[in-house]
């Protein structure tokens, strides 16, 4: 019997880095893949302090608690977020962080850790402001939570109409991240 697919992700960083949007694209990809999905943002005092995070669950089975306490995958866009969640990642899990912004203090040898200079690359590649999707591309490549085609479709579904001109940039950023 095939083991049912289950993946829990935490995406964390500063407000304005596209943390919640990144999570939404991942959740939408799961929806398009026919999976059960949930997306839960932080809306507590930490949000007012400038940090933001969201938990995403992708599963073949109905999702119980959408609150992610033991993620399979952590995507960290700043140092406080990396340090806050690194210890919670399941052994054998995957950690993707923005090496331009994160200076890791805590190391883990039982998880796979990838530092990607996403902000620097986004500046060099004229993808300012969408370093988050470079990290999403890397996450896709390392975890296989979905396919590139589905993620592209999810981006088209998730980008609001007033930002429609950014869709192709978003897709280019994902491809760039996948190749790193």
């Amino acid at each position, binding site marked *: 019997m095939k083991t049912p697919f289950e993946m829990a992700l935490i995406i964390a960083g500063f407000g304005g880095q596209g943390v919640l949007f990144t999570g*939404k694209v991942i959740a939408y990809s799961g929806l398009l893949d026919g999976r059960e999905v949930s997306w839960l943002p932080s*809306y*507590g005092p930490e949000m007012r302090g400038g940090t933001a995070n969201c938990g995403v669950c992708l599963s073949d089975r109905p999702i119980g608690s959408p609150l992610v306490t033991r993620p399979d995958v952590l995507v960290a866009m700043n140092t406080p977020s990396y340090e806050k969640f690194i210890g919670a990642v399941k052994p054998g899990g995957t950690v993707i962080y923005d090496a331009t912004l994160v200076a890791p203090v805590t190391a883990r040898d039982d998880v796979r850790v990838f530092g990607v200079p996403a902000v620097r690359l986004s500046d060099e590649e004229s993808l300012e402001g969408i370093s988050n999707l470079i990290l999403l591309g890397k996450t896709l490549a390392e975890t296989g939570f979905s396919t590139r085609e589905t993620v592209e479709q999810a981006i088209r579904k998730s980008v609001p109409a007033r930002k429609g001109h950014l869709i192709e940039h978003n897709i280019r950023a994902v491809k760039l991240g996948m190749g790193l």
Partner: protein
Amino acid sequence: MGERFLMKGNEALAEAAVLAGCRHFFCYPITPQNEVCAYMSRRMPKAGGTFLQAESEIAAINMVLGASAAGARAMTSSSSPGISLKTEGISYLAGSDLPCVILNIQRGGPGLGGIQPSQADYFQATRAPGHGDLRILVFSPATVQEMVDTVFDAFDLAERYRMPAMILADGLLGQMMEPVEFPAVDVTPSPKPWAVGANDGSRPRNVINSLYLQADVLEQRIRERFERYRQVEQSHSRCEEYLTGDAEILTVAYGASARVVRTAVNDARDKGIKAGMLRPLTLWPFPQEQLRAAAARAGAVLTVEMSMGQMVEDVRLYTGGSVPVHFFGRTGGVVPTPAEVLEQIERLNAEGGNG
């Protein structure tokens, strides 16, 4: 199947209310239900309806009273402290036999409390949503899809029995996104022959009022109302039973905590423990017959809530001492984890269910 959208519970519920024929929405902002107001402020004008951000929760509930008295499908939404402010208006709605839908996206209390998810308003919703002898319908969705489906039932039953209905959700359900489908309907509410201005002058005019200075007249009105409540109790309690058939440990949970408990029940089953869950979909009327039947088959009951223990009192009341009833809760905005609940189930199992 229609298209599946990825939406927050708050937004999905607001959209469903519009599809259910609600054209009058009044609110005052409060976290964690703000998306309901924000969504309605965009959507309602396009639907030809009225969105009004009132100067207070008290004003908003009284605008609902006015709209309902005129025969409109009216709704308001808030979160715990704001619901407390609405209780006077809810009592007046009940005393005037007016239907409406009130959404409570619960947060931690008492007082201003916090803004994280909570289920500590169970007593308020089911016991004292306002002063006086009264009942209101209380629905408890646990998924974004159920947030949508519940709205239609809430309006329908509220109007059929001419009483307020509350949807008792929480910050977790309001804030989370899940796939959701909307029914392909655009409900036109049935005419309200009792509404003010609804008759053509051939009969005495309709009066909406909750004041009866003659005690025997008031008593008669209340008795008539309680006859309707009795009909509601007989016909409209609902619950989901999950793996209860052979369950030796029966968990009881609603709303967000039922999601956590479902995972814990699955984990317990994986360990060979016969656990099940009864999940009320209506808190008033409470699914007492279903609970009694499921509890009679089990050796122990475990109620899980995001409170210090409120629904557990109903579980004890309706099982009448026939089975030990245990409680586990987190409160103040803390959401229990499946591991914590599993630990409780394992402990009861080790004790042979009799604790």
